[in-house]
């Protein structure tokens, strides 16, 4: 059995286990699977294109926000994937335009996007018979958790398999060539712009659909979806990244640890995030050296 097959088998086991657990754990696994998809979408850009983004809350959060507003206005659920698709295209365009900056400036610029959205989101207010939105955000009718979990686990599985297939494909090799040296890739005839566009589109697409799942799972979205916490989540979850399963497991561990620490003190998990961020350069160097 190859390593890839084993990784896929391990993921299937992780996805099937919650079906036999109680509601609370099913709910938690559902959240973890959504964030794992979000992390993988980020990892696709980082691993295959060498771009570290702190702005993936753009496709993730914007889709969640717009979907929640659309559902609030009684738009049918089957239109939501269309919203995710549109937001993904807009995000991909922004990421592509930003990719003309060097790698360090790309990080700064994407971080700026997430903070600007976080600051701007509380101003999104809809006036009806009462005020909706603002810092409270938008609520939608609850959907059955099992149904949402089915969709979110399918999305995670598709994203995971897509990444493995992409990694071993010609397109994946071209992406990695662009990641290692754009000029050298150009010199051997690779269409660098096209490769970057495709990378941005794939990455944004999965992040957008994860955002849609987030709205359906929580039945509520508020400005904190754009918070720094969410912006740095994929970075922290994949700090030990080697293969594609490690970021998934990292996301699960972070979600479970967050819930546990939150039960001790509200927001206590952000301490953990801060500590991991501070030591992340050391952890990454260690992980790269091992690799």
């Amino acid at each position, binding site marked *: 059995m190859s390593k890839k097959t084993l990784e896929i088998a391990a993921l299937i086991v992780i996805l099937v286990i919650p079906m036999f657990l109680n509601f609370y754990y099913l709910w938690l696994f559902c959240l973890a699977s959504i964030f794992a998809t979000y992390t993988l979408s980020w990892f696709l850009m980082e691993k295959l294109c060498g771009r*570290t983004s702190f702005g993936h809350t753009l496709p993730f959060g914007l889709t969640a926000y717009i979907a929640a507003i659309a559902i609030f206005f009684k738009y049918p659920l089957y239109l939501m994937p269309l919203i995710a698709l549109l937001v993904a295209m807009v995000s991909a365009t922004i990421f592509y335009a930003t990719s003309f900056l060097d*790698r*360090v400036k790309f*990080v*700064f610029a994407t*971080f*700026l996007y997430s*903070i*600007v959205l*976080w*600051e701007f989101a509380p101003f999104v207010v809809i006036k009806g018979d009462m005020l909706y939105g603002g810092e409270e955000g938008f609520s939608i009718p609850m959907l059955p958790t099992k149904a949402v979990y089915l969709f979110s686990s399918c999305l995670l599985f598709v994203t995971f398999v897509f990444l493995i297939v992409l990694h071993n494909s010609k397109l994946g090799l071209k992406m990695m060539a662009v990641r290692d040296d754009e000029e050298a890739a150009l010199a051997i005839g690779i269409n660098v712009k096209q490769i970057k566009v495709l990378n941005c589109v794939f990455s944004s697409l999965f992040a957008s659909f994860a955002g849609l799942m987030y709205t359906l799972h929580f039945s509520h979205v508020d400005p904190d979806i754009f918070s*720094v*916490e969410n912006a*740095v989540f994929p*970075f922290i979850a994949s700090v030990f990244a080697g293969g594609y399963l490690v970021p998934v497991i990292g996301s699960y561990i972070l979600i479970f640890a967050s819930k546990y620490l939150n039960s001790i*003190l*509200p*927001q*206590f998990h*952000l*301490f953990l*995030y*801060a*500590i*991991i*961020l*501070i*030591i*992340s*350069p*050391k952890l*990454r160097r260690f992980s790269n050296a091992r690799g």
Partner: protein
Amino acid sequence: MEINYLIINFFSGIFLALFTIGLISNFKIAKFLNLSYGSFFALGAYVAYHFFLSLHLLSILILLFISSIFGILLYVLLKKIGNDVLSSTIVSLGLGILIEEILRLTHVTGYFLILDVPIKVYEIAGVKMAQWELVQFFMLITILTILYALYKSKYGIKIKFVEEDVELATIYGVNINVYQFSSILLACILSSVLGFLSSTTQAIFPSMGWGVLVSGIIVLAIASQFRLVGFKQYLVLTIVSIAYAEIIGWF
């Protein structure tokens, strides 16, 4: 009415310039984007919330002590862990979140207001100005004068050298650690002093520094396009900040 808006925006620009001076000095001398800068701003405001009404200006000593401790911690972390622009920036982001969470956990999520400090308003040439606006104006003039004197002194050429090429400066025997340490420490103190002084004019909450940090980064990005070093960069930064505040304020 129009003049009044222009003046309000002008003072917002002055505040932004004051705030961004520390950010640009960290970026040029210590070679990283200090993402903990906004948290130092919040830290200053919280110190004011706890001590200003009881200790008045003596509370600034407490502020200097606390912000220096965190400033030194940031420097040590950068030296031990951050070895390039990106990793240093990420370390500073981690410290920023840590400070914010310490504030959140020790105060529980919520907003605070300092209400017992009367806001003095002066009328100069028919235009009303708050005391805090005048204070920040004189602070900016003082800091720019100190920076001008510093760049004209024997240390000026060394600082310019560090700003232009840190490796070359090291090879030529400039002790970059002294300049980087001073830059980080003074920037952290400046940010917390600004948070302290402006705390009476706004709601205090742990993430209050992010908004002004975003504006600071935008101004820094625009000012950096001029690729200046030395005193000129701070002058350009001031002009960009005022122009930015006027344009944003207009909309």
